[in-house]
């Protein structure tokens, strides 16, 4: 009797899990498998196996450029977000007047579509945008508009603008769950503010910073809309994939092979990153 009810209970659990699992397998796992199979088929055919799409792409001299560009953009924007988020969170933590407003401001890049962000940034940093007007009028020795759009530093800036909230929100929540008595103890023990920050606060919030930066990295690595409209001649992997199917005849197999390379690179990088992350800090 008891066994029967247990069985029934686990059956109910399974039944309830079913929609989620169906969604996962139908809309993620199966498409991934289709992509894998497609990448191994000759172009436009349903039979036969080949590795040519991987080989031709990796043999192209541009392939290395594309992959390096993707990593350069995602890693440097991750670093920039960390460098920007930590001071911001330390300031926001003090709960100055109006801190709620700034907290909300922090989330804005995440709730608006990336396209709109890209459009606004292109306008702001364009040769007729406010940033260049400001530089020309108020900074000596700059008479010509500085080229920011469609350059690598510009792209890093755009990526950082769009993806820093992942890092800053995680950092802020770690910072706020910190026990204030630890810092007080350090203070009583005679450490000055800088020492408290350097030896107590930063090491303690490091796991939060790293966890947030992983999210920023993943988002930046897979970024699609920003490089699509603001990349110019610089095409990271995601845009490179889209270019394969953008024109007719669409090269689905070539696109799938690139997508698999992208996913593999991301998983490989994340594995390395997680290893570093698991290491005790300091």
């Amino acid at each position, binding site marked *: 009797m008891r066994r029967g009810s247990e069985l029934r*209970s686990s059956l109910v*659990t399974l039944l*309830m*899990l*079913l*929609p*989620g699992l*169906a*969604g*996962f397998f139908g*809309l*993620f796992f199966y*498409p*991934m*498998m*289709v*992509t894998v199979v*497609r990448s191994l088929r000759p172009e436009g055919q349903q039979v036969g196996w080949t590795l040519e799409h991987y080989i031709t792409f990796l043999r192209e001299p541009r392939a290395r450029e594309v992959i390096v560009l993707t990593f350069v953009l995602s890693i440097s924007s991750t670093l920039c977000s960390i460098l920007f988020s930590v001071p*911001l969170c330390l*300031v926001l933590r003090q709960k*100055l007047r109006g801190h709620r407003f*700034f907290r*909300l*401001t*922090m*989330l*804005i890049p*995440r*709730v*608006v*579509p*990336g*396209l*709109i962000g890209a*459009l*606004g*940034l292109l*306008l*702001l940093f364009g040769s*007729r945008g*406010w940033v260049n007007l400001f530089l*020309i009028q108020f900074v000596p020795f700059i008479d010509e508009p500085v080229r920011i759009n469609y350059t690598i530093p510009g792209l890093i800036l755009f990526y950082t*603008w769009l993806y820093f909230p*992942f890092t800053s*929100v*995680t950092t802020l*929540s770690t910072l706020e769950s910190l026990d204030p008595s630890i810092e007080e103890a350090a203070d009583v023990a005679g450490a000055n503010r800088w020492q408290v920050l350097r030896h107590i606060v930063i090491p303690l919030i490091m796991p939060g910073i790293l966890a*947030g930066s*992983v*999210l920023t990295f993943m988002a930046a690595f*897979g970024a*699609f*809309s920003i490089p699509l*409209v603001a990349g110019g001649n610089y095409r990271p992997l*995601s845009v490179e*994939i889209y270019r394969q199917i953008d024109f007719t005849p669409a090269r689905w197999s070539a696109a*799938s092979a690139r997508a698999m390379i*992208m*996913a593999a690179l*991301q998983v490989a990088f994340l594995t390395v990153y997680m290893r570093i992350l698991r290491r005790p800090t300091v």
Partner: protein
Amino acid sequence: MKLLRPYFKAVVNARKLLVYTFLLCFALLIYMPFLMIALKSIGRGWFGRLWLPPELTLDWYRWAVEVTNIPEITKNTLIIAALAVAMSTLIGIPTGWAFGRRKIPGKELLMSMILLPRMIPPIAYALGVAQIFYRLHLINTHFGVALAHVAICAPYAILVLSATFEGLDERVLEAAAVCGANPLRTFFHVILPLILPGILSSMIFTFTTSYNEFTLTLMTYGKDTITLPVRTYIAMGEGYWEVTSAMSIILVIPSLIVLFMIQRQVAPEKLVGGFKGV
């Protein structure tokens, strides 16, 4: 010592000034792009080294509405978002319940598996989704585009709802039973009011996700199911920056309203993170 006090005060004030300057720069950096878009969308003849547009006009909005058929596109976007929200909620409630209230072997692993679509770049599985949908003739249908959105919305719904169900206190349910409420009554008068905020917040999150989704839409849309983000992208390619700006403003206002509306009810931080310890 007394002499030093004004000096200390000045230092403290300077610190404060520095902090506020930093915050101001941060806010400017975030808001200025939108201000530029807004000005671009209402300005005429804004060329050369001018800080502000010389003439104001609403023509670009008229253009956006007439030429690019914004009302129809908005309707598409809303239908797709509503379908995506409905499907994700229907998936999220039972699965979230199972995650929140039942013992499942390997729960953590299963949860990270469910969250995988949010970690792998969408373009990787969007390719597969597009090919499957071509075969099933789901391309260019509202249902198809919404289904593609569910791939990325459902993990959100499951995550938020499992936290909601986990937070449901067993003692409250027992108290209801002790007081003589039958299961139906318990459900409507006790459980529903307790989980309603969670369901609402999951619906809001999935709505904004679907409303803003670009990659998956781009792979599955057709001429009858153009959504606002895709239309904005097309307009950007056409090079009419003023009209694009007007459309962007139309697109972005609902997201901002939602953000300011929900910030007090639910922690908007959830919009960003959601992974526990990654």
